[in-house]
């Protein structure tokens, strides 16, 4: 399956670029990611727990970067093996462009393939699942990088962890 979308992130292109190559950011943003090690240069090792329809599995796999054109574009290729659940693999080409107001326009094109039990049991829902995963990832990414529009809301409070986490990467790189 293939899909593409874009979203505007209220952070400079350099900040976005740095974030996208940071294993901590990726770990926090990939839905269901329990482990992420490695580096942009060497590639990342990841463990992701996910449930696709009736199939729940722990995927272990590699993410490698290709076509690195700092800070304009990069392609992330991933392949995960889920044991009896089958496999998933895919790539995301990410383009970053500066916007007039100093933000960044992130455009992505994602291609995903699944095999084994995932294809057999989940094929009808896999498109929707992949779209949800991508949306969630980029939403998490956006939240991590830019933080909430109102800085006060980022303070720990009654809203719980959700807001507490927002903008943590931006604060980190600024700090």
């Amino acid at each position, binding site marked *: 399956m293939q899909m593409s979308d874009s979203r505007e992130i209220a952070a400079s292109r350099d900040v976005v670029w740095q974030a996208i190559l940071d294993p901590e950011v990726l770990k926090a943003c990939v839905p269901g990611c329990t482990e992420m090690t490695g580096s942009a240069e060497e590639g990342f090792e990841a463990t992701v727990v996910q449930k696709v329809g009736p199939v729940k599995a722990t995927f272990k796999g590699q993410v490698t970067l290709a076509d690195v054109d700092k800070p304009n574009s990069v392609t992330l290729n991933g392949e995960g093996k889920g044991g009896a659940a089958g*496999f998933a693999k895919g790539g995301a080409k990410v383009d970053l462009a500066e916007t007039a107001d100093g933000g960044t326009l992130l455009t992505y094109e994602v291609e995903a*393939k*699944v*095999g*084994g*039990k995932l*294809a*057999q049991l989940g*094929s009808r829902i896999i498109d929707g699942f992949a779209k949800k995963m991508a949306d969630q990832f980029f939403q998490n990414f956006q939240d991590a990088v830019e933080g909430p529009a109102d800085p006060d809301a980022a303070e720990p409070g009654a809203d719980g962890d959700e807001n507490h986490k927002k903008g943590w990467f931006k604060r980190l790189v600024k700090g």
Partner: protein
Amino acid sequence: MPKDHGIGASPKRREDVRFLTGAGNYTDDINLHGQAYVYFLRSDMAHGKINKVDTEEASQMPGVVRIFTGADFEGVGGLPCGWQVTDKNGDPMKEPAHPVLAQGKVRHVGDPVAAVVAESLEEARTAAEAIELDIEELPAVVDMKAALTDGATKVHDDLSDNLCYDWQFGTDTETTDKAFAEAAHVTTLELVNNRLVANPMEPRVAVGDYSRANDESTLYTTSQNPHVIRLLMGAFVLGIPEHKLRVVAPDVGGGFGTKIFHYAEEAFCTFAARQINRPVKWTASRSEAFMSDAHGRDHVTKIELALDADNNFTAVRTDTYANMGAYLSTFSSSVPTWLHGTLMAGNYKTPAVQVNVKAVFTTTVPVDAYRGAGRPEATFQLERVIDKAARELGADPIALRRQNFITEFPYETPVAVAYDTGDYGATMDKMEELMDIPGFAARRAESEAKGMLRGLGVNCFIEACGIAPSNLVGQLGARAGLYDAATVRVNATGSISVMVGAHSHGQGHETAFPQVVAEMLGIDESMIDIVHGDTSKIPFGMGTYGSRSIAVCGSAMVRATEKIINKAKKIAAHLLEAAETDIELKDGQFSVAGTDKSVAWGDVTLAAYVPHNYPLEDIEPGLEETAFYDPSNFTYPAGAYACEVELDPETGEVTIEKFVSADDFGNVINPMIVEGQVHGGIAQGIGQALLENCAYDENGQLLSASYMDYAMPRADNLPHMANYTVDHSCQTPCTHNPLGVKGCGEAGAIGSPPTVVNAVIDALQSGGHKVEHIDMPVSPSRVWAAMNG
């Protein structure tokens, strides 16, 4: 008044008592002392090069007894194909190796790569997760036409390409071309016969056992033909002589063809049991069944029909691509050729018929016989193109068919077979009567008043059953004889055990077969039991498929019973002190013609086993006879089917409102069982037409491997019983077997798919939609797309 016993009666199925009370003994009910369990690690890739299968960590896991890989089967035979097809150039088909566990490459999703034998299934499955597979993905080969292009990825590297054979059959090209050139009208149709999965209620199971004491192997398996499995596995795969190999197929919960074939798991369990000296059991999950049971159909065809100015059919030409899948399953090669091409004349006296079939290897599950096997594909093409021709010519589809019917028998078709008997006009008459064709216009008006479209579909079919005359199929490439056998063992007190080569897995043999013997002897059916499914008990018969059981095995049983009667008459003559030629057998009594002297059946059978007063100088004691029967021809059941559908133009949803089948099965032993067989066959035909589809994506991933995605027919997809008539009152008895029977198991699945599609097209045309064809399954989305396309 209908008969209440013997041939033609409908006693309830005696086997149902145990099936309906949970007392059946299926293969999965068999648990042997010390048994281990196997879990097969299967490829989740369609095609790949096996670099490494590392079992080191997995073999240390709890409960693991032993892990096998392809390397363990070096030097062991591969799974054989039972039919050698010769292509149009005279060359043998390409026959790739089919190892028990994958060697070198994986070739379809589900191809077994390793087998973990452990103390429990859970431990085996857990250990399989720890096997490290290094398989380098290769491009999948899914589309048949693309698979045959130059430079296409090869499924088997040692073959020159993906073409298994290019087969041509029937009328020569020059004559066929001439007929088309001279035709007043030619109708052409391109269509797909959708890939199906048989889905018997019981998934496959195998239990292998080995007795070191006498070096004997036993395989318990879900098979339609235990002797065929013993022959193939013993002789070709594992090298075990027959006397050291027993194959048992106990109660089997449906087969539909897919349990004919010899499968890797059967060979594995038998092999592994010898290796570890313990019983080894495998039970397929439903997911496993979808990716390891041989699939059915999967043809892509272009058919052309030539007619003269008077609407007489002058020629038929077909061009078919038939999917073999990744390996040649047991009878796969025969399905698109000899079980398909030979039926392309249908019920019609078309003088020229030419069939062209390219069989193609792809990285998909092997494809083989499924209920009907080749004959549904032939019927679908022919009856769809005739319907289209009728529309193009403005002819009545029933009249066009009638005009072209074969009416004189025997009839030699241009595609090798000779129909011995039939009356296609009679089944058409019966169908028209039961369908109330004249009332259709009013029913259509009623539907239209509700905003629905209504269509009427009719078609004929013919099939070749009673498989098969061995000398003929031998010439055509079959590597086995296709006779059958029966042993009638009369016991001392007169009860009878009949050991038969046919296997019953839903067909009701245990009820119907005794009806025949009871009728012949004039004794009660309750005195007769059928024994089947165990090579150590039954004579070497070839099993059940191709609607053959009653026609071939039943004939063997008749022959054996005739021998029993002849011998019993000799004994009776001795007891009655009369001439053997004067002895008559009626209602279980042997009497001397023209006298009141008689002895009962039980007196004779007792004398045979307690030969105190017995003609020992003339005949042996005992009363047990075996007969082998090899048919001299196929049988040719035929019929006319019709259905009416209602189509919702808002949604494209099709419902079947009325269905009539008028079949000619020759003589019928048990009408209730025959009707049940036809009901079941039609349900599967409607399933193919409206619902079922086995789908692969372009990467060779199997997308429909559960009942969430593979739509099986359910009760609400079938017409209400009040509008669902299966008739078999037209009977032209088979001329060459002693019972005059033709077989009924596959008819419904063969006859019904074109009926449904013809009706859907008729409904659409009536609504002004110029739709000529929709490929099966005719799902709401396909209908809607065709209407709005």
